[in-house]
């Protein structure tokens, strides 16, 4: 999957969880949870949405902790066909 497409999937998934978060206004290089004000329940919901939409299951061990939006986009793009 191209990074742009991965980003769109993330935006669509996030719209279900935190519709007020605008990915274009997020700094992609800093810890995403703090930047978007998401708690662990929100992050779990995001993983669930991404899994449902792409079949890719991104778990805690797949990304550095904490992770940034750019890192999530890269991981999803790498693993989604």
């Amino acid at each position, binding site marked *: 999957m191209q990074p742009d497409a991965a980003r769109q999937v993330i935006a669509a998934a996030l719209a279900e969880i*935190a519709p007020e978060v605008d990915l274009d206004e997020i700094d992609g290089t800093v810890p995403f949870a703090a930047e978007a004000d998401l708690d662990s329940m929100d992050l779990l919901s995001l993983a669930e949405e991404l899994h449902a939409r792409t079949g890719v299951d991104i778990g805690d061990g797949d990304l550095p902790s904490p992770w940034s939006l750019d890192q999530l986009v890269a991981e999803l793009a790498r693993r989604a066909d």
Partner: protein
Amino acid sequence: MGDFTMPSLGADMERGTLSEWLVAEGDEVRKGQIVAVIETDKSDVEVEVFESGVVAELLVAPGTEVEVGTPLARIGSPGASRAGNAEPPADEPSTAPEPARIATVSGGGRRGHATAILSPILRQLADTLRVDPDSIDGTGPGGRLTRADLEGAAATEPTHPPTSPTRLRSAGGGSSPYARRLAAELGVDVADVSGSGLGGAVRARDLPERASGDVGAESAQILRQRSEADAPDEVIGADGADEPAEPAEPAPPSAPKKDRSAAMRQAIARLMTTANREIPHYHVLSTLDVHDAVAWLDHHNASHPPAERILPAAVLLRATALAATQVPELNGWWEDDAFVPSPTVDLGVAVSLRGGGVVTPTIADAGSLTLVETMEALRGLVARARRGNLRSADLANASLTVTNLGEQGAEEVIGVIHPPQVAIVGFGRPVDRVVALDGMVAVRPTIRATVSGDHRATDGHAGSLLLAAIAKALDHPAVL
């Protein structure tokens, strides 16, 4: 047979506003069915009826604020009044005060006659089903829409029919809670705003420039999902002066919704003032080594899909519930100068809301739930709290409250007891700390846990016992 009364949705609630009826006179209702939406200082709550029967009479019109215990509706025996009530009376209380809102906002041209009168109940149903009432032919008296019309339309039209884009209601694509709150503060109806978000969702940046101040920095706020939908249409002109958008549309019968942010702060202030005035608090603290719990969770979560994963918060709740069954003197209420133990552990859970604010719904009988069930209960509570549709069962009186700051929080929280409860447990953010372990220095994941207790009921010994029981439960996560 009996009255459906204004329920008490929390120990501190004295009054509530009936914001919406979800049933009409003549409807059959089943025990447990959600029949109304009640607005409290803190939240909009979907309220169930506790007996089966037929709605004989709606006694209170939407928008009315009444005291707890006031009869809201009469429930008759099943079948008693059904025959004589086949058609809703023309002046049923739920329709009379509220004019044809959807018909006026939909911008003419189409079959407006069908929705000339659309009760709040059917409006709610249309929102829920995501159907456009104006695109449906009414089969009721005078071409009025009936419940069956809406349900039929929803069944045959899986997708939302095209609606005038600028007036699209927010129910489907959705506006963000933050945007709705901003809109309320600006006096803007989100239905007037073209959303730039996905599916037309209204975002904060779609709203007109804020007048002043940093809204994000404001103290507790709360979702106003339903109340915005009913707010009178208003826009703020370029000069900032209020200017009615549609003067032809009368205001709702009730006074404008009061600022819930202020109401919520007042409710919290009342409760906490009572707590600080009447409860002689004591506090005890332990640093819990959560290495085993974290390792168990990591192992579990690595082998389960996201939908079956368990959060640390659920483990902490489960451990607390288990501990509370072992220290029953902290699980109950202080009433009439005596401690009344609770037969079950009903855990109040502080849930923070997106955009600010906290509500404290209850996981009933948490002591009898497995860890997986506790996680499911927590998921449901958080989702409903953040969507703004908690149910009355979610707001049952808790016997003990837990406040958990989570991954982003501070390291330690010392809670204020929610009267009439006698204790509150606080968990800080998990932190890797240097600890002594078997005579060696080690770095371990830890959580600072506190118990605030009521000295009238117990002393620090009970609080220590509770913390020890929680620590022990966390050391054996597999048996949680």
